[in-house]
Structure formats: C-alpha cells, structure tokens
C-alpha cells in the first residue's frame, strides 16, 4: 500500500470506530435513561415505567419498618401544590428532611410510587441562598 492509501484507510477506520462509539452512546443513553418528572406531571403517569421524581419533601415523613414513607411536592410550587406519595427502601442520604429537594427514581404501583433501592438523592442544602428553612 502506498503511504497515501494507508493514511486514508487509517482515517476511515478510526472515524468508523468513533462513529460506532458515538452511535452506541446515543442509543444506550436514550434507551436507558429515566425521564425527570415533577410531582404534578407524575400524577397520571402509567404504571411500570421508571421516572426520576424531583421535588421537595413535605412535612410529616415517617418510617414503616425498613420503608421510608414521604410525600413530595413541586420544587417551586406553593405549600398547597399537589403531592405524590413515595415508599422508599434503601440508603437515606444524611441531609434528607422536610423541605429538602430530593431526586428519586420511582415506578408507579397502584396509588403510590415505589422508589428504586438506593436511588434517593438529597441535594446538599442550599438553604442559605434560597431562603428555605430559615
């Protein structure tokens, strides 16, 4: 092979590899991702699909054995905004408490949303900057 053809071949091979990787990334990320939803968007979600629920914890959460039971309302919604119930088992991050913003992967089961194990994320408190909790 002359050097020119060699270069071209190499370019084509590496570009193909890069394209394949990119295509795999695009395909898997869109199929494996879970959509982010706020409580008000989630109220009539179909059962079985996984959603990333983001919102604020409403006062009055409690434990039932291993299960943490809490309700979440829209992040910036008023106190009267609609809430959805969540039942969650797994690690509870330290900053979890009422008024905190949480993200949790949930699936609908009947009237409640069941959290995926260990999917609960509580944001590092930004209470000092957003005026919450003071």
């Amino acid at each position, binding site marked *: 092979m002359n050097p020119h053809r060699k270069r071209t071949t190499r370019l084509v091979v590496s570009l193909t590899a890069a394209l394949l990787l990119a295509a795999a990334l695009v395909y898997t990320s*869109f199929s*494996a991702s879970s959509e*982010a939803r706020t409580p008000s968007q989630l109220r009539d979600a179909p059962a079985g699909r996984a959603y990333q629920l983001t919102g604020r914890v409403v006062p009055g959460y409690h434990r039932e054995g291993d299960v943490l039971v809490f309700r979440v309302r829209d992040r910036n919604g008023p106190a009267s905004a609609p809430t959805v119930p969540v039942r969650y088992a797994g690690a509870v991050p*330290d900053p979890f*408490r009422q008024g905190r913003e949480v993200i949790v992967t949930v699936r609908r089961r009947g009237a409640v949303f069941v959290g995926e194990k260990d999917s609960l*994320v*509580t944001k*590092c408190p930004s209470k000092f900057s957003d005026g919450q909790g003071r």
Partner: protein
Amino acid sequence: MLIAGRACLFLAVALCVYGAGASIVGVRTGRADLTASGRRAVYALALVLTLAFAILEGAFLRSDFTFRLVGTHSSTSTPAFYRATAVWSSQEGSLLLWVWLLSLWSSLVLARTGRRLGDVTAWATAVLLVFAGFFAGLTAFLANPFQLASPAPAEGVGLEPLLRHPSMMVHPPMLYSGYTLCTIPFAFAVGALITRRVEADWIGAVRRFALAAWFFLGIGILLGARWSWSELGWGGYWAWDPVENAALMPWLTGTAFLHSIMVQQRRGMLKTWNASLVLATGFLAILGTFLVRSGVLESIHAFGASTLGIPFLTFVALLAFGSIWLVLSRREGLRSEHRIDSLLSREAVFVLNNLVLVALCFVIFWGTFFPLISEAVTGTRASVGPPWFDRYTVPLAIVLVLLSGVGPLVAWRRVTPAGARRTFLAPVAFALAAVAALLVVPGVVARPAALLMFAFAAFVLAAVAQEVARGVRVRRAVSHERAPVALVAVVRRNRRRYGGYLVHVGMAVLFVGVAGSTAFQHMRDARLVPGQSARLDGYDVRYVRATGQLSSEKISLGAVLEVRRGGRLVATLRPSRGYYPSSDPGEGPIGRFFDGESTSEVGLRAGARRDVWTSIQPDIGPLRRLIDDANQRFATSSANVQALVVAGLVAHYEGNPLPATFRFIVSPLVEWIWFGGLVVLLGGLIAIWPAAAFAQARAAAARAVRARPGRRRGAADAAAPV
C-alpha cells in the same frame, strides 16, 4: 473592612482589564514596556486578591457578623478550624478562593517564565487576566462576598454539619488549585497558537504546571472519594455525580496531554492533538467550575443558586468557539514532522492511550450532560445512572491499565519482534501466573472483568519492575554502586520517567481496589433490635446496645455492634447519627434539637483484605410523642431545664432502644484504592519536583543553543536566555 474588601475586588477587576489590554496592545505594537506592565498587573492582582481573601478570612475567624456571609455560614460556636474553612462553603467565598488561587499560580508561572517566550507569554498573560477578570467580575458584581448585614445578627447559623470534616480544609482548595492550574497551559497554548510559535518551547514552559494541575486534581478527587466512603452514610466512594465527573474530565484529558507532549517533544508529532488537548483541559476546568457553581445539573453537590448561569454559559461558549477557531486557523503550522513508523512503538501506544482517555472523557461528558442533551432533543429532561457509565468506563479502564503496562516496555520508533518477545516474556508470564493463582479463589471466575483487571494490573507491576531493574543494572555496570544507591541515582537522573512509572504502579493498585470492591462487594440492610444479629459474607454483626450522647454541638444516637467471623470477635464498631439543632423556632423548643441537620458517623473497620462498613438510621419516630409533649410542657422553661429535658430524652432512647435500620457492607480491597492513590501522588511528586541545580543549568544551556534568530518583533530581548 467591608468597604476595603469590596474596593479590593473592584481594583482587581480594573487591574485585569488594564493588564489584559496592556499586554495585547504591547504585543501588537511591539512595546516591551506595555507587556512588562501587563505582567506587573498580574503580580498586583495577586497582591490585591490576597488582601481581599485575608479580609474575608479574618472576618470569619473574628466572627464579624456585619459581614452577611459570616452570619450565614459560620457562628461563634463553630470551632476555629471550621470557621477558617467556612469561607469556601459559600458560593461567594468559593469564587474568591478560585480567582485568588488563579492569581497566585499566574504570578508563579510568569515569574518562572520571565521573558523567555516573548510574545507567547504576553498573550498568555492577557488570557490569564481575562479569566481572572471574569471571576473577579463575578465576585465584584454578582456574588459579592463583602455584603453588609444590617442589622448584624448576634449569632450566625453555623457551618453546614455535613461540611464539618477535616477534609474540608484540603479537598476544596486542592480541586480549585487543580482547576485554576489547568488554565495556565490553556493560556500558553492560546499564546503559542496566536503567535504561530507552536514548536515545543511553550510546552516545556508549562509542562510542570500541567503536571501540577493533574496532581492537585488527583488529590482532590481522591480525598473526595475517601471522604465519601469513610464519612458519608451511603456506602460508596464514587457515584458518577456531575460534580465528581466535572473534576474527573479535565484530569483525564490532562493525563492524555502529559503523555502526548512527550511524543511532540521527542518526535515533533501530534501538535494539533496536543494543542486541542490543552485547550480542552482548560475548557473542561472552567466547565467544571461552572457545573459546581451554577446548579445547572441535578447533583448532590448543587450548592449554589443559579444566578451565575447566563454569564458562565456565555463565557464557556466563547472559550469553546475561540479554541476551535484557533486550532483550525493555525492547522498549517501544526503539521507533524514525522509519521508513526510502527504500531509497536511507544508513540503508537501513547496515541492509543490518548484515544482511550479521550473516549473515557467523552463518555463521561455525554453522560453528565445527558439531561441537557435529552431536553434539547426530546423536550424532557432524562438522565442516565451509574450502570450506564459502568458499561463504557469498565472496558475502557481495563484497556487503559493494559496500555500503561505496554507503554514502558516498547521503545520509541519501532520494536523488532525479537526485542518484543524478550521484553514481554517475563511480565506476560507473571500476569498468567497471577491469573492461575486467582482462579483458585472461589467466585473470581464468575467476574471476568475483575479477573482481567487483576491480570493486567499484575502485568503492569511486572513490566515496571523489569524496567526499573534494567535501569539499575545498566547504571551498576558503569558505576559499580550498590543496588539501592544505583536505584536512587537512576531515579534522580530521570525523575519524569521513573515518577511516571510509579504512577502506573499506583494506578494498577488503585484499579485492583476498584475492581475488587465493585465486583465482590456484599451489602445488606437490616432492621435490628439489641440482641439481634445479621449475617453477611461470613460475618456476624450483632447489635449489642443503643448509645446516646449529648454534646454542646449535637445529639448522637448510635449503636455498639460486635462483628464476629467464625465465632471470633474481629471488631467492635460504633456507627451513630448526629443531630444538630435547627434554628427554626417552628419545630418547638425541644423538637428543634432533633429536627435540624443530621449526619451519619460511619463505623468502619478498614483492612488490607476487606473493609467492614456499618451505618445506622435510628428510628426516632416513636420518640416523637414524647418530644411533642415536651415541646408544650417546657415551652417557657429556661435553657438549662430544656437541656435537661433533651438529656432525658437521649437517656430514654439509650434505655429503651427501638429497632434501628442498619446498612452493612463488606467490601474487599477498598484500602488498595487509597494506597494506590498515595503511590500515584508520590510518583507525581517525584516527576514534579524541581530538578537539581545542575540539571537546570543544563536545560538553560540547551535553551541558549536552541534560541534561533529571526523572530518577530521584540525578538532581541525575548530570545535572551534566562
């Protein structure tokens, strides 16, 4: 003081604008006095920002609540150590720390480079001052740390309990040092591209800074992981959180750059690639700061308000387009002087390693920004979790470890098949022996990825050992020294190479730890009352009794756990959960002691073979009735009586323990991660350490020889060797 601090910030912005302008005008008109003035603006900036930072730090240490920031992030009851670190727990303080560090590093690089690179340095000065100006502008106008609190509160709210950890002193400043150091190679690359002086000179000037950036980011990442594992209650060290990824991405491209510059310095190849890598690293560092500080992506670390989003985004976009345009418009000068001769050569391995590192970085970039990408494409935000990341990063990491063993074994230009057989024989044999030994361990066969990682790590260790032994042998043949003396001499003569080898060893050990702890981890959540026990991976964990402690800072509710293996007591662990008082009066005079922030204290038994990790979630729900009752009954009592009531409640918990939820983890080889990380840092330190005086003299002489005539304007003084 507030006014003095604010004045410092305005002065800093003015210095940046002036200095950048003077540098650019100076270099374009060939007026050396103006470029020198631009350089002095950087030194002045460092001075002014040091003053501003000292004023803020002083206010925190004195608990001067006329500073609004002090009242919202510190308190008189916060220990002095944490008052000092509370400065960077705030958005405003963090940005000030960032720009202050940038000004210090910029001064250092300019002082070291002097006039050596002439126009390149002048342009780099301008770029650094633009960066500093942007961040100084943010602190001066949008996130001002010197705001007046009126009226000044009598007491502050204190430092966020989660941040009360010794790592707070080191982890953020290390990461910020890393981020800011990334901008220095960026600035010099821009200078070299603008002046079309893309030979290896500028790389020599900034290599050490690139290495330092890599080093500090590495410390920051490692400390963050360690903090997470040994302190935070979730039981992991890496979560693919956007803020973690933000630090990892420039570290990966920085690692790629540190390898590929060797190819450019040796063989004059990969110039476009190197320039792109440096620009990408600087860009990713700024992007990382943006991610941490803007709250644009959902993250555990989303500390900040998002008022900085738009200016940051504009700045980041300008950086990206500017960098791409620069590389494209200068591509003629970036042509390679040579071609790769053979696929079995060190330069070819470096190219492969670069491709893998960049692919890793791209995968992480895609996953991190996927919420924004999917929102742009489909209209809804969606995100990918750790399994998605693992699917790509695991194979890439395995290949990377393999390459880190192959690299040291192959020579530059080309290797003959016979030579390859000779150098590869022993390391390959050692790796195979390791696999054979591991096959005996039950369960390993079921985890091929981990087994492959172990094999490649063994290969790396053997390859590096063989190379070092060869170096020592060659030296001894000439000098007839004893082996340890010869080893020190060999390393001292080529710190960069042997430091690099040590980094490879450390990374191999670190990845053994990662593979072991992810593939063979056992985890169990259990709800126990005292006397009950749970079994996990051959261990029996018994909940012996509940503990309750009251200190001036917090209430601690925990447990004493006895860990047994085969009937023998191996450890007594005391996980607990600390409850910090809330300042919200709505939670009642007693309830506020239980309803504030709470943090986990992990009970950990670390070992070379495995860590036993425990955490507790006490159930204080049943205490609630007593608390509510006490809230009403003691609402008007004195503070002393209320304290007694709280002590009584704690004693009640201790005496009448309720079921508590525990998490137990048995994770093999986690300690290898920290040990490997330390080895990596030691290797980095050896490579970074300034060479001895004679070596510097030699380098200066080499530069004098290389200084060529016929440069552009201002060549006469610029070419003078230092």
